[in-house]
């Protein structure tokens, strides 16, 4: 049976993890490779690296990091953040990334999804969608929720699927950072309307939130950052609890 996936997300700046990550046993809290190895050992099913650096050397630094992670880590990982061309993706995949995630560049140039899917296959193209509710409608936003667009979540998600995305990473900006649970109603609608996997993101605070997003949100995977980084939830405890609730997980 296909297991539900638990996906820690790491923010990367200039090849280093950012935000205070609370791993006491870590020699170097900024080293993405060491963190990735720890999460892999603890039972993470997949990792997402989100690059937030904006330097000119960004591409090379990120490619180097991808290479170093792939060298050491034997679980799949996705890389996102500022990817805007076929060449960008080619470099990341050649260096060992399993998937790439695109967001703003897909909104600005939807044809990019078709081009990437045709060249690399749908299986490695994740489209990330950030959305929040405005007057009862889920509207797609850019730049971490700061810039609204004209696109509506569900129609955009459908278009993204039709253009060849292999997976959707949906972050509710209304839930992100609140630790009050995932946007399960919207997630369930996405999961029912689409025929590709949906990764839930934004709002994880407790183990129950994960259970709910798999049961009520019909999510295929759940992504979180701070609850894992600050050890509020241990992945092993989380997976055992999920298994206890009858949710298939890899233990």
């Amino acid at each position: 049976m296909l297991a539900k996936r638990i996906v820690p997300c790491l923010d990367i700046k200039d090849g280093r993890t950012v935000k205070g990550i609370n791993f006491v046993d870590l020699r170097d809290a900024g080293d993405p490779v060491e963190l990735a190895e720890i999460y892999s050992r603890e039972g993470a099913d997949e990792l997402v690296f989100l690059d937030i650096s904006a330097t000119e050397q960004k591409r090379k630094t990120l490619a180097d990091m991808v290479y170093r992670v792939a060298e050491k880590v034997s679980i799949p990982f996705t890389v996102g953040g500022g990817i805007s061309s076929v060449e960008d993706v080619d470099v990341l995949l050649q260096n060992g990334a399993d998937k790439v995630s695109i967001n703003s560049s897909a909104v600005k140039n939807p044809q990019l999804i078709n081009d990437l899917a045709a060249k690399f296959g749908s299986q490695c193209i994740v489209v990330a969608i950030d959305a929040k509710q405005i007057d009862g409608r889920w509207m797609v936003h850019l730049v971490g929720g700061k810039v609204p667009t004209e696109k509506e979540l569900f129609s955009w998600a459908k278009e993204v699927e039709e253009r060849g995305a292999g997976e959707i990473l949906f972050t509710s900006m209304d839930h992100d950072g609140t630790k009050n649970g995932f946007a399960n109603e919207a997630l369930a609608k996405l999961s029912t309307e689409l025929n590709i996997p949906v990764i839930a993101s934004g709002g994880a605070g407790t183990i129950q939130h994960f259970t709910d997003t798999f049961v009520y949100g019909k999510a295929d995977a759940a992504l979180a950052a701070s609850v894992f980084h600050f050890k509020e939830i241990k992945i092993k405890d989380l997976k055992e609890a999920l298994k206890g609730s009858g949710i298939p997980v890899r233990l």
Partner: protein
Amino acid sequence: MKIVIINYGAGNIQSIKFAIQRLGHSAILSNNVKEIQNADKVIFPGVGEASSAMHKLRASGLDKVIPELKQPVLGICLGMQLMCNSSEEGNTKGLGIFDVDVIRFSNKVKVPQIGWNQISNLKTKLFEGIREKEHIYLVHSYYAPLCNETIAESEYDLKYSSALRKDNFYGTQFHPEKSSDVGERILKNFLEI
């Protein structure tokens, strides 16, 4: 041990190279016929689309070379699928090593299947030391149905072949190089065949 990963321009092969390194061996990437024929072990990877991958194999003559290899060969993911008779993906003929036709999952399930599924009914030395129902990582939209050459099965939509074997040829639908400790053991087993 001389390990060659066939490099015909299909997908992420860096990860396989790294996985072999983690096992204490080294592998070279090559599309050179002599080098492939002289290897002790051959790994035939593949990520992408079946008909264009077959096109690349034909263009380099590897479509004739691979089925004639005598040493252990491991096809991974699309590599395994290309070793079958045909694939529905782009309606292409395959290398005809495994006597089975690759078809697409129905829309009753999400396609592609992405993530960790279980393997069972494990046969051959490839799975030595691996317990039934261990999880392995896979990403695919097409599958090989169960057949005489099935040596592991998984269930998604229906039961299908998660690994195949004929003589010196092995194929896994899953990615051992991305399947954590379980995958590492399977790769190690292959290198010891």
